[in-house]
């Protein structure tokens, strides 16, 4: 029924076939399915890691059953197509929360593992992969139960392995305890990257969640809002939020974004702590079911990098401001140094910056190539889950371990991303 596209809607892709099993017990033997294979969950990765142009997609949307939940110890087992939304409905009333969550709850557990996703608590909790106790991996040469003590190499290769090591069918995750569904949050305005750094450094020790929004028109002296928060036992109000659907019209022009940024900065000036329900705090954009269509027909590109030295970040912000290409959601955060078991995991200690651009801008791709150069010379990396245009050379620079990872790829699996960056 739904098209199998990626969230950025930038790369045209058409699978030759889609296999959507209804039961884990009815997944056909992988060697009987034609074409190269790739799991597809909810299509929330931005570029082409979830696409397999001309190949077969194994759609996991019906493999979404929860299997067990140990309410004493916060251990949940579910099928790989279960979304964070499914899981939150069960765990939050029982006093548990996701150990790590991205900015949307409409992603699958399989996708969280395959992209080794991170969240606002990276400086404390590390990546999602650190909280994966085990998973079942179906490969063309058999099925494997993987954990830190069983099939360890496959476990490490699959976390952040971009779906290339086989089909994850089920996983067991360690949740984290909370006293309530509420978060005590603060929003602190800042006026430069330097100020951001200062607030971030003093916040990381006391706040589990930290992230900042900045006005992409300001360069290194951009205004921004630093958000920080902790789970709380304070009572708050759950806002019921209707989910909006917007018409697919490109509305995010430079002047709209400029106006929005100015208004947003002014409206968020109140730095008093407030009790907020987890839903609007972690998932503000989920209120608009299809916000990705606001960039118009050509779609959009996200660019997320991490670098150790803030100088490269400052230069990227300066160039973005000079380009006058509006980045609507510009997000900056300091990653911590907690290591992930994932071989190909993206997050590492440093500052991560995430920009998004409507794809229609002329000069966008050369500008992003220039960003790659800055990131490469700073020894950083770019996030595959958001990428649609990285060159093979840059990919190999950012992930020098790719060759040893490639030994763990299931020979029957491939993706548009993998073919692009290894061509």
């Amino acid at each position, binding site marked *: 029924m739904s098209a199998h596209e990626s969230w950025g809607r930038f790369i045209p892709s058409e699978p030759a076939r889609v296999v959507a099993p209804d039961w884990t*017990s009815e997944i056909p033997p992988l060697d009987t399915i034609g074409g190269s294979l790739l799991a597809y969950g909810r299509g929330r990765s931005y570029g082409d890691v979830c696409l397999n142009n001309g190949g077969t997609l194994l759609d996991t949307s019906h493999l979404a059953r929860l299997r067990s939940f140990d309410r004493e110890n916060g251990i949940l087992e579910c099928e790989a197509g279960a979304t964070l939304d499914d899981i939150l409905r069960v765990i939050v009333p029982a006093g548990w929360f996701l150990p790590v969550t991205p900015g949307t709850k409409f992603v699958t557990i399989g996708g969280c593992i395959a992209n080794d996703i991170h969240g606002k608590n990276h400086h404390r909790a590390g990546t999602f992969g650190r909280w994966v106790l085990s998973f079942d991996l179906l490969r063309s040469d058999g099925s494997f139960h993987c954990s830190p003590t069983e099939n360890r190499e496959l476990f490490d290769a699959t976390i952040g392995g971009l779906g290339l090591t086989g089909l994850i069918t089920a996983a067991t995750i360690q949740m984290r305890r909370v006293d309530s569904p509420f978060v005590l949050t603060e929003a602190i305005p800042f006026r430069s990257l330097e100020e951001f750094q200062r607030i971030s450094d003093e916040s990381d020790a006391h706040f589990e969640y930290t992230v900042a929004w900045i006005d992409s028109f300001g360069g290194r002296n951009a205004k921004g809002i630093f958000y920080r928060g902790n789970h709380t036992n304070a009572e708050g109000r759950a806002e019921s939020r209707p989910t909006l659907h917007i018409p697919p019209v490109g509305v995010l022009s430079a002047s709209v974004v400029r106006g929005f940024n100015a208004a947003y900065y002014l409206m968020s000036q109140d730095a008093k702590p407030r009790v907020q329900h987890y839903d609007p705090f972690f998932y503000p954009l989920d209120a608009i079911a299809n916000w990705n269509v606001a960039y118009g027909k050509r779609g959009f590109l996200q660019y997320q990098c991490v670098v150790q030295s803030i100088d490269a970040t400052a230069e990227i912000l300066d160039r973005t401001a000079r380009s006058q290409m509006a980045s609507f959601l510009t997000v900056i955060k300091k990653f911590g140094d907690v290591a992930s078991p994932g071989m190909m995991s993206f997050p590492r200690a440093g500052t991560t910056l995430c920009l998004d651009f409507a794809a229609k801008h002329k000069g966008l791709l050369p500008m992003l190539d220039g960003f790659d150069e800055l990131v490469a010379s700073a020894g950083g990396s770019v996030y595959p889950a958001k990428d649609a245009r990285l060159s093979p050379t840059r990919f190999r620079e950012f992930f020098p371990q790719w060759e040893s990872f490639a030994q763990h790829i299931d020979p029957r699996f491939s993706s548009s991303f993998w073919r692009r960056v290894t061509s």
Partner: protein
Amino acid sequence: MRVAIIGATSAIAEATAQNFAEEGAELFLVARNAEKLAAVAADLRVRGAARVDELVIDVARHREIVEAAGDVDAVLIAHGSLPDQRTMEREIDAQIESFNLNATSVIALAGAFANVIGDGTIAVIGSVAGDRGRRSNYVYGAAKAAIHAYCDGLRGRVNVVLIKPGWVDTPMTRGMKKNPLFADARSVGRGIHDAILRKRGTVYLPGYWRWISLIVRMLPSRLVRF
């Protein structure tokens, strides 16, 4: 609240059951395939069902089902299958078999539950296909029409909720070409759950099928050749 669900591994039944489970209801599930039923039951337990009983049995055995269900506040009769119309036209025995599954067993269960349910609710899944016989699916449509008439009459004795879904994206319709009128099982499941709690009489899901069906029923016979 204790709810019996017949045909519990169907996508629509499963989606309905998830809504009851989240409210902490007790569920009694009936299906043919033990492995699939166990997967559904485990999911419903995790989602909050106070208790989930499983019975693996052929739906034609209505006496055993009603007895094992015990005291229920509602029963949802959701089993059925979409036969291939062309095959049915060639093989009359298969036609009868299909009618027995989609109509006779449903009527037997509804009738048997009616004798024990008291002021509880019997919910039955009919179909817009039963509102008017059509060239493309009249074997299926005739079975659903039989259920509709039975439910309309039974309503005089007990609470009956008759659900008439339009096209729903489920394993049953996997072979059909999809169009924008297809609904997902999740939203239909929520609609059934709400209809049962509100003891609605007849519900089209999604609601716009009421109007589509009205028009299809009003068309003169010589036009209904599709």
